[in-house]
């Protein structure tokens, strides 16, 4: 899958309306600024960015044919005040009626207190089990509302927005270097991926090329982040089915990898290590060896870790948790090879270039442990005029809702662990 995007195409209202009536191409993300709405679509192998102007506060909704658009449309309404005409769901999403203003990113934000947290739409004949937003354990803030009949979950509805921090507003008016700290703190399990996608969007907007050594170091960091993230999720899955030894071994290797990252890049999660224009600093002496040792340890343990998806309990239970665990294991296997190769042939070059102060628009993507992340921004004389960041959790949470349908309450913990979801990436 290519992460290079062709320039944005402005659509007339008729062309956008046509888009709204066809299933394909599938939607990756939808967002807005004060004047336009933007849709990122998957056109064959390459992503395609289109936009249309908002007229009289409205734009044609995509949700009637693309159910994946519905959370985005509600978010666009809560942040910018643009209404999706003909949309399937007009309940609030991020705005729980607690902010000083409604539509805080609009040209003229509205008065406060116009709304409440969204009501649940579960069938009233079902028993309801409320979970969250404070769920105990070490879980992200989210409210899971289960509509159950006996022990069976008929429907799961999620309410997010609890971790909304107004990040996009804070990024406006800042230089890309300053705003990169916010990109790195959208969703910590993919902090490197978000930093890379943000940096690529900036570099695309300014038309600047990054030195080959910086590109290789970014790929090393992204690979390490993905392997550590996969190990964390596997540890949680093993814990949920009571395989304490495998859980402990996965956690041990994740910890060794994070210590190696600290040696190599100066931060356990490699937060703020990727900056627009390159990387913040070169890899430390002894860093490649530390990462290499941690990876060899994981490679030696892989035959044991591969037993996890075959564990009886995991296979017999609903929701394909075993399938997701296998996917994570494949990610670890591939990642180890990629990082080893990169460390073996590191090009000699600068690690960053200075950024020009200019105007432009750009979009960039990167791979994180949970999937692709996308960043878009528009620069006005070196300052961010508008930006959006898309985390894979936008599609993964609805996937969890669909997976839980018809499942058992007992399996909820295991299936949630196998998804490894966080709220902050969606909540912005």
């Amino acid at each position, binding site marked *: 899958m290519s992460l290079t995007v062709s320039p944005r195409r402005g659509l007339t209202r008729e062309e956008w309306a046509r888009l709204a009536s066809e299933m394909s191409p599938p939607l990756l993300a939808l967002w807005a600024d004060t004047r336009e709405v933007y849709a990122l679509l998957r056109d064959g192998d390459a992503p395609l960015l289109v936009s249309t102007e908002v007229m009289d506060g409205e734009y044609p909704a995509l949700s009637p044919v693309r159910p994946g658009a519905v959370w985005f449309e509600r978010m666009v309404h809560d942040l910018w005040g643009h209404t999706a005409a003909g949309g399937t769901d007009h309940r609030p999403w*991020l705005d*729980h009626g*607690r*902010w*000083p*203003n409604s539509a*805080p990113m609009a040209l003229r934000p509205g008065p406060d207190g116009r709304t409440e*947290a969204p009501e649940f739409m579960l069938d009233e004949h079902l028993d309801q089990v409320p979970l969250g*937003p*404070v*769920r*105990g*354990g*070490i*879980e*992200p*803030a989210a409210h899971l509302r289960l509509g159950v009949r006996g022990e069976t979950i008929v429907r799961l509805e999620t309410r997010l*927005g*609890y*971790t*909304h*921090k*107004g*990040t996009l*507003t*804070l990024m406006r008016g800042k230089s890309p270097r300053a705003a990169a*700290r*916010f990109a790195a*703190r*959208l*969703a*910590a*399990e993919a*902090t490197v991926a978000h930093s890379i996608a943000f940096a690529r969007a900036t570099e695309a907007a300014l038309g600047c090329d990054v030195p080959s050594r910086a590109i290789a170091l970014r790929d090393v960091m992204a690979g390490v982040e993905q392997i550590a993230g996969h190990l*964390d999720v596997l*540890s*949680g899955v093993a814990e949920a089915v009571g395989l304490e*030894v*495998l*859980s*402990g*071994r996965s*956690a*041990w290797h*994740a*910890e060794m990898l*994070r210590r190696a990252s600290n040696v190599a890049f100066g931060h*356990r*999660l490699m*937060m703020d290590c990727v900056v627009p224009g390159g990387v913040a600093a070169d890899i430390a002496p002894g860093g490649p060896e530390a990462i290499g040792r941690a990876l060899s340890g994981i490679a030696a343990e892989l035959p*044991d870790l591969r*037993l996890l998806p075959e564990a009886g309990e995991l296979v017999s239970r609903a929701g394909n948790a075993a399938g997701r665990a296998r996917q994570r294991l494949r990610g670890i296997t591939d990642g180890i090879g990629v990082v080893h190769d990169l460390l073996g042939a590191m090009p000699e070059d600068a690690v960053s270039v200075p950024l020009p102060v200019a105007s432009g628009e750009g979009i960039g993507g990167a791979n994180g442990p949970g999937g692709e992340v996308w960043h878009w921004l528009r620069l006005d004389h070196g300052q961010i005029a508008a930006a959006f960041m898309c985390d894979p959790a936008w599609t993964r949470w609805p996937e969890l809702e669909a997976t839980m349908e018809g499942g058992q309450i007992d399996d909820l913990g295991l299936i949630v662990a196998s998804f490894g979801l*966080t*709220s*902050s990436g969606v*909540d912005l």
Partner: protein
Amino acid sequence: MLWRRLVRTLLAGPIAGTPAPVDTGTAASLAGRLDDRGQTRLGRSLAILHLDAGSCGGCEIELRALRRAVYDLERFGIGFVASPRHADVLLVTGPVTRNLLDAMEQAYSAMPDPKFVVAVGDCAVDGGVFKGSYAVTGGVGTTLPVDLLISGCPPTPERILAGLRALLEANARGQAAVSLR
């Protein structure tokens, strides 16, 4: 095979690392706080309720590491619980978003006395990079009385562990039967 792994694990002993000694300075100042408030002691264990008040997930990654094999928090008598009614400590991460404020206040008021509030991470300490946003209040201290601040973005597991163990010592001091091992 898994049984080989099990045998090897049994022979090799635990993988948990050796902990550093407790920071007596922090423990003493926390003990002073307890005396000032005339709080009853909780004994040599702490039940923690974790509350994500808008964290990006970084502090949670380190908290999970702290609970799992390498740091093995439970061996110090510190564990995570699911309900505020069972908790001695409210451990808050994130800059305290307005959308979560009600839930945080409810969780705190549902906890039985004596209770502590611990702010973990730069966001929970004072709002961190999110300070000044319309959607956050800017740290736990704006709403609840905070007993312990653990800064860092995110703080390392060692750092969080040092803070929690200092709290445990402050709380247990004077109980002669218990050694500081």
